[in-house]
C-alpha cells in the first residue's frame, strides 16, 4: 500500500486530485493537507511514496516546500510533483530546478496526472 500526500489549499482542487488518484489501478492511501505548514507537520509522521504540491499557497509556498523536502535527508528521495498554473512557467521552472520530479499544469487532465503518478509510484516502489 503506497501513500500519497496532497498539499493544496483549494478544497475543490484537492477533491479533484484525490478523485483522479483514487482511480489509479493500484492500492494507494491518500492524505490531504490544506497548507504548507500542515505538510511540514505531516511529513515526519509516516513514510510517503509520492508528494503532490500546489505552488501558490499562503504561508509557505510550494517552492519552499520542495526546497525543504529536497534538502532533508529523510524526505529527499520521495518523488515530488508540483502543480502549477498556466502562466507561471517561471515558478514551474524553479520548482523543477529545486528538484521536483514532475509538474502538472492546472486545470489538469486526469489521465496525465495518473500517468505521472503511476510512473513515480513505480519508481518509489522499486526503491523499497
Amino acid at each position: 500500500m503506497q501513500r500519497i500526500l496532497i498539499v493544496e489549499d483549494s478544497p475543490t482542487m484537492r477533491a479533484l486530485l484525490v478523485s483522479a488518484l483514487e482511480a489509479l489501478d493500484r492500492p494507494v492511501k491518500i492524505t490531504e493537507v490544506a497548507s504548507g505548514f500542515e505538510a511540514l507537520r505531516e511529513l515526519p509522521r509516516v513514510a510517503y511514496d509520492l508528494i503532490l504540491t500546489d505552488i501558490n499557497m499562503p504561508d509557505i509556498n510550494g517552492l519552499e516546500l520542495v526546497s525543504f523536502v529536497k534538502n532533508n535527508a529523510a524526505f529527499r528521495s520521495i518523488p515530488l510533483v508540483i502543480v502549477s498554473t498556466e502562466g507561471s512557467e517561471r515558478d514551474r521552472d524553479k520548482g523543477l530546478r529545486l528538484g521536483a520530479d514532475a509538474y502538472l499544469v492546472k486545470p489538469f487532465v486526469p489521465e496525465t496526472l495518473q500517468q505521472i503518478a503511476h510512473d513515480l509510484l513505480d519508481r518509489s516502489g522499486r526503491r523499497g
Partner: protein
Amino acid sequence: MSSSQSESGAAAPRWQDLARRAAERRNAEVESVAVRQLLTFVLDGSPYAVPVERVREIVRVRPITPVPRLPGDVCGVISLRGEILEVIDLRLRLRLHAGPSGRASRIIVVHAADGGVAGLLVDGVTEVLPVPEDALRPAAAAETGNVETLCVRGDRFISLIDLERVLRFDAQH
C-alpha cells in the same frame, strides 16, 4: 483500496479560491474568446458539467438521512461540518437510470443563484475543463430541459446542466 486520511481544513472562502485562479489567468486568452471553466463529472456513464464558480466543494458520499415528504429525486440530507444540506440524486433528477453509489461517487456542493446550497449526488468527478464560449451549443428541444447546453470536446458532447432548473422545486405538497 484507497481512502483519504483526512478531509482537512474548512472550505476556503470561495472568493479567495477564485482570486487565485484569476491571478493565474493568461493574458492572451482574455483578448480572444471568453472561456468558461466547467467542472465535469459522470452520471450513468456519460459526462456532464456545471460551471465551476457554482461549486463550493466536493465531498465523499456519507450517510444520507432520508427525509419524509420530499420529492423522490431528493435522497435526503447530509451533515457537512455542522451544516445540514439536502442532497439531490442527479441521476433521478435528470431521469436517467437509478444506480448504486460506487467508490468514486461524490456529492458536489453547489450554490444556487439565491445563495442557497445543495448537494448533487454524482457517480464521479473528472476535471475542471476550460471551454471557449463558442464550443457551447444549445441542447436539442427533446431534452428534459435540465440540460442547458452541450459543449463539444473532441468528439464527445458534455452536457452542461442548467443548475437553476435542477435546483428549482415548486411547492407541490
